């Protein structure tokens, strides 16, 4: 196990290195000259001299490799550059926003697990009954509805029609968080329910369940102590995988509700052509995503020791 973890962490290094190259290149695939973009976003009239000064200041006159090396050194020291718009450090902004996004994402993952485990088990145990069809229909529907449409519909029915919640969530208070959280949690809960149902059904069909049933073991005991425990492995994987859709979903949901998180920050920065923030966003989300994948793999092995023997 220790060797495995060490090996995986070592494998992470080239991937993270590649991620920094990818992030750095983002600035170069954007059309136009970075110095000019910076001056434009600072809303200044551009003269030839100013452009040259800015190019020198940003180090654009040096070779590409050297620019990348300097940038990477800064990033490793926690310096993500300066916002074009207001000249404030990007890192501070990003970490403030990250806190809000983490709050939103973690609470919606928690809610979706809380809802989907009972629903998934119920649906599997009552296979092909009316309630099962109903749950399956809802969870399929929830998978086919785009998150932005769901958010707009929630807004329409819960804010405009019934006035239960405020339309915008700028302050970041708990009551304002409920709606964006629901918009993120519903599609996730639908996906979880579908998978948990499939997993529990598969476990229920296995021989050990037949064996226990024929020995007269309490059905509840079979379900909660054995079936659910075996299903837990894939539930952990699911949670790990859902982080990706959470990150993408947060961009859309935060933009709609005005929640002051990473998604809102990056969309505002894209509109203002403030590229260092976009770079910081990619780098931070990429690193978190890679680390969560690693954690998922490790916990997967921890929960299911059979995996270790295969390799």
């Amino acid at each position, binding site marked *: 196990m220790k060797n495995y973890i060490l090996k995986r962490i070592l494998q992470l290094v080239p991937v993270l290195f*590649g991620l920094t190259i990818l992030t750095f290149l983002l600035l170069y695939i954007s059309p136009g000259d970075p110095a000019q973009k910076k001056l434009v976003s600072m809303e200044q009239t551009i003269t030839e001299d100013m452009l040259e000064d800015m190019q020198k200041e940003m180090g654009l006159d040096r070779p590409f490799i050297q620019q990348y090396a300097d940038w990477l050194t800064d990033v490793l020291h926690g310096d993500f550059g300066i916002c074009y718009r207001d000249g404030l450090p990007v890192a501070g902004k990003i970490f403030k926003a990250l806190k809000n996004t983490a709050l939103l994402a973690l609470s919606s993952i928690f809610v979706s697990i809380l809802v989907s485990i009972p629903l998934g088990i119920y649906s599997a145990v009552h296979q092909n009954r009316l309630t099962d069809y109903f749950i399956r229909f809802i969870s399929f529907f929830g998978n086919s509805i*785009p998150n932005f449409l769901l958010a707009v519909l929630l807004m329409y029915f819960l804010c405009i029609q019934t006035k239960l919640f405020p339309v915008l969530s700028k302050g970041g208070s708990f009551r304002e968080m409920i709606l964006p959280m629901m918009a993120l949690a519903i599609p996730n809960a639908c996906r979880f329910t579908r998978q948990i149902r499939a997993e529990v059904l598969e476990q229920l069909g296995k021989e050990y369940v037949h064996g226990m049933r024929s020995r007269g073991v309490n059905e509840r005991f079979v379900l909660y102590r054995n079936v659910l425990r075996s299903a837990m492995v894939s539930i952990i994987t699911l949670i790990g995988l859902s982080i990706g859709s959470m990150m993408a979903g947060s961009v859309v949901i935060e933009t709609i509700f005005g929640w002051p998180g990473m998604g809102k920050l990056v969309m505002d920065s894209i509109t203002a052509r403030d590229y260092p923030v*976009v770079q910081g966003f990619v780098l931070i*989300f990429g690193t978190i*995503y890679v680390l969560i994948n690693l954690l998922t793999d490790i916990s997967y092995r921890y929960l299911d020791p059979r995996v270790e023997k295969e390799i």
Partner: protein
Amino acid sequence: MKNKVKKRFLFFLCLAAGLMIIALLAPYLVPNDPYETNPLVLKAPPCAKYPFGTDKFGRCILSRVLMGAQTSIFCAVLLVLITFLVGTLLGVLCGYYEGILDALVMRLADILMSLPEMVLAIAVAGVLGGSIVNAMIALGFAGWTTYARLAKSQVLIRKKEYFISAAKMGGCSDLHIISFHILPNIIGPLIVNATSKIGTTMIGFAGLSFLGLGVQVPMAEWGSMINEARAYLQLTPWAVLFPGAAIVLTVSVFNLLGDAARDLLDVEGCHE
């Protein structure tokens, strides 16, 4: 069992084909000009002349939803097709020849997969600026990696089998072996994978347009229509509900087609 699965697959294939035909014929089916603004019927509720109502510029929503079908469906299908072809080609070459190409392509795939697909797409489209082509580049940027990995792993398994050695000894060229002996054996799971990605791609594309990073106004596209209409949701809920229903319906059909394709492959696999 097999017949039932096959029938279900054919049913959804027909539905999907029907949607594509509607999308193809959209310019001839529209009751009104989707781009014509009419100041006399601003924000009109659904009526005989405008079955889905009109938006804040007085444009016919039904016509716009129909034209939007063309954009959404064809962009998604085209994108899936391109990424499928590129990914499969790279994956097969990597699996067959291994070596330096394999190492390079797979490391690149690792790096691209270190970000959730949609996050990368938002960043790339955001940096490139919003347009249809840029949205497709952004979504396709990492889209090919799934196929490349799947194809490679499949080729590695097939390569060890005797019929490949036999073909080699019989003097077949690499091209012949790949296209006549390897591809037919591995293409099934790849096609299933591609089919089930059409729905997700459609949602991704609509999401980018919704954020203003895809199709630009005034061009008709479901995501951007919903974005345009959400500001005055209270006054014209139909301007959100109809394009929304169109997305959900289309994505459902393609998702069900993907599920059916997967089941069909499972059944066929058992049959062998």
